[in-house]
C-alpha cells in the first residue's frame, strides 16, 4: 500500500482487453520485468556521465547523506531544492530525464497519492478549502501531503540515481567502505548473481508450463502449480547451494574472504563527495 515505483521501471505490459492474464503470464511478466530493469540499469551505468565517472564509494556516502538531509528537513522548499539537485545530477549523467521524472510523478499519485488523499481532510487544522459544510481540506492536511509526496519522490529519485549510474559489482565494493563485513558483502554478491540464475530458472519453468497449456487452467490447478513451482525452485536452490559449496571448497574457500586492496579515490571523487556533503550540511541547516 505504500510502495512507489522506481523511476526507471519499464512500463507494465499492456493487458489484453478480453483475455484475463493468468498466474503463469503474470509471473512471467514480473520475472522478465526484473531482468529487464537490471539489464537497463547496467547499460545506463556504463554510459559516460558525471555520476558514472565518480567512485561508487563517494556516490554511496553522498547518497546516504542526501537521503538523511531529505528525511530531516522541516522545510518543503529545501526538499524541493534537493529534488532539483537530483534532477540536475540525472541530466549531467546522461540519464533519460523524461523517464526519470515521469515515472516518479506518474506512479507516485497511484500509491503515495491515494494514501495521502484522506489526510487532506482528516488532518486537524485551519480550513484551506471548504467543499461542503462539515467537509473541508485543511491547511495542515495540504502541507502534510506535500511533505510526504515531495519527500518520497526526492528519496526515490536519489536512490534511482545511485542504481542507474553504478554497476552492481562497483556498488558491492562501495559497501565495504561502510565497514560492512567482507562475508556479508560476499553473500550479497553471490545472492545478486544467483537471483538472476533463479529468475531464469523460474522463467524457464513457467514458460515450459505455458507452452503445454491449452485453454485456461482452473483456479485450483493454478494454485497447485504455483506451490509445486515454488517447491521445485526451492529444491533446485538447495541442490545448487550444495554444488556451489563443493565448488568453493575445491578452490580453497574456508569460510572467509579477502578483499582486494581498494583503489584510492581520485581528486574528482573527493570533490564530488565534498560538494554532496556540503549540500547536505546546508540543507540540514536550512531545513531545521
Amino acid at each position: 500500500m505504500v510502495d512507489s515505483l522506481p523511476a526507471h521501471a519499464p512500463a507494465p505490459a499492456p493487458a489484453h482487453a478480453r483475455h484475463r492474464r493468468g498466474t503463469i503470464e503474470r509471473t512471467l511478466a514480473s520475472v522478465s520485468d526484473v531482468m529487464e530493469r537490471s539489464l537497463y540499469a547496467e547499460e545506463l551505468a556504463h554510459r559516460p556521465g558525471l555520476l558514472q565517472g565518480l567512485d561508487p564509494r563517494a556516490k554511496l556516502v553522498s547518497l546516504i547523506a542526501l537521503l538523511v538531509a531529505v528525511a530531516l528537513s522541516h522545510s518543503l522548499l529545501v526538499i524541493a531544492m534537493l529534488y532539483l539537485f537530483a534532477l540536475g545530477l540525472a541530466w549531467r549523467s546522461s540519464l533519460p530525464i523524461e523517464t526519470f521524472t515521469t515515472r516518479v510523478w506518474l506512479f507516485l499519485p497511484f500509491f503515495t497519492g491515494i494514501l495521502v488523499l484522506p489526510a487532506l481532510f482528516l488532518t486537524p487544522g485551519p480550513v484551506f478549502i471548504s467543499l461542503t459544510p462539515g467537509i473541508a481540506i485543511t491547511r495542515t492536511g495540504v502541507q502534510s501531503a506535500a511533505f510526504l509526496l515531495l519527500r518520497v519522490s526526492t528519496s526515490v529519485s536519489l536512490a534511482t540515481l545511485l542504481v542507474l549510474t553504478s554497476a552492481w559489482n562497483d556498488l558491492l565494493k562501495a559497501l565495504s567502505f561502510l565497514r560492512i563485513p567482507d562475508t556479508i558483502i560476499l553473500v550479497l554478491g553471490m545472492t545478486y548473481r544467483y537471483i538472476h540464475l533463479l529468475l531464469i530458472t523460474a522463467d524457464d519453468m513457467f514458460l515450459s508450463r505455458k507452452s503445454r497449456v491449452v485453454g485456461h487452467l482452473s483456479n485450483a490447478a493454478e494454485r497447485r502449480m504455483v506451490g509445486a513451482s515454488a517447491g521445485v525452485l526451492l529444491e533446485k536452490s538447495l541442490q545448487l547451494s550444495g554444488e556451489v559449496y563443493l565448488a568453493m571448497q575445491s578452490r580453497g574457500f574456508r569460510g572467509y574472504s579477502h578483499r582486494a586492496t581498494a583503489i584510492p579515490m581520485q581528486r574528482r571523487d573527493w570533490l564530488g563527495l565534498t560538494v554532496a556533503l556540503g549540500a547536505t550540511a546546508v540543507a540540514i541547516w536550512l531545513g531545521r
Partner: protein
Amino acid sequence: MLYSPASMHIPDGYLSPLTSLVMLILVLPFWAAGARHLRQRSAARSVPLIALMAAFSFVIMMFNVPLPGGTSGHAVGGALAAILLGPEVASVAVSIALVIQAIFFGDGGILNIGANCFNMAVVLPYVAYGIYWLAAANTPITSRRRVVGAALGGWAGLTVAAFFAAVEFGIQPVLFHTAGGTPLYAPYPLSVAIPAMVIPHLLIASVVEGALTALVVLYLQHANRGILQAPLAAEAPAEAVSFRRLRLLWVGLIVLVIATPLGLLAPGTAWGEWGSQQLATMGLGFVPHGLVQLESLWGAPMAGYDLPALGNASLGYVLSAVAGIILVAVVAWLFSKLLSSGHQEQHG
C-alpha cells in the same frame, strides 16, 4: 511497488530518520542471532546456503498466487523461509533479499532498511514459525496439521507484520510534526493507520502469504520430505527446545513493549483503577476516607506510565514497559538464584 504489490516495503520519506535508526537497532540482535546460528554449522557451507536462500526469497516474491474468487497477489515468502530454515536463518536470508531490493533495485527505502527488515524479516518469520511450531511439533511429516500450521503461520505472520508497520506509521504524527501541528512524515495517527494497514492485509495479502506457505509445504510433503524435517528436527534436544521457547517469550515481550503506546488511544480509565479525584466525579457522592489516606502513601516514579521530563507520552509508555520488564526479570533472577543456592546447600 513492483515486486509484491500486496506487501509493505516502506519507501524513504514515510518514517522519521530517528524511527528508521531505532528500527535498525531493533533488528540488529536478530541478525546477530542468525549469524550465531549459521556459525554453528560450517562457515564455508553457510555462505552459499544463505546466498541461495536469499536469492530464492527474492524470486519467490515474484510468484503470482491466485486465491479462490479471482483475486491474486504476491507473497513475501518470510513464513516459508522460517519453516524451512528456522526463524533465525530465515531472518538473515529475507533481510539480504530486502537489502538487495533496496540498494540494487531501488525498491523500498534505503534509510528504512531496518524497518522493512524488522517487519518482513523478523516479525513475519518469527510469528509464522511460532504458530507452525505450535501446530506441527511432534506431528508426522505428512500430517495435515503442518499444512494448516503453515497457512495460519503465514497468515498471522504477515498480519502482525502489517500491524507493526502500521504502528511505525501511526506514531509519526504524534512524535514528529512542525510547531503548527503539520505531520512531517506518515500523516495518520494509530487509530487510522492500524485498521487501514491491518484489515486489507488480513483479508488479502496475508491470505496470499498463508496460501503460498501451505501450498509449498503440501508439495514438499509429497515430493521432498527431507527438507521439511530439518528445522524441527534440529530442536530435538530438550534444552534447545526450552531455550527456543524462552526466546519466543522474549520476542513476544518485545512485541508487547513496542505496542504499549496503543494504550494512549483508549479513552477513560481502566475499570476499578480510578483515583480518588475520578471517583468523586462518578456519582458515588463520597470518597472513602481510607482510600484518600492510602493513596498518598506511595508516589510512583513513573506515574501513569509516563515520564513528563521526556515530553512524549508514547516514549514514556515504552520506557515504562522496558523498566518494568527489567525490574521483574531482575527480581525473578534474584529469586531463582536464592532458591538454587538454597537447593545446593541442602545437597552440599
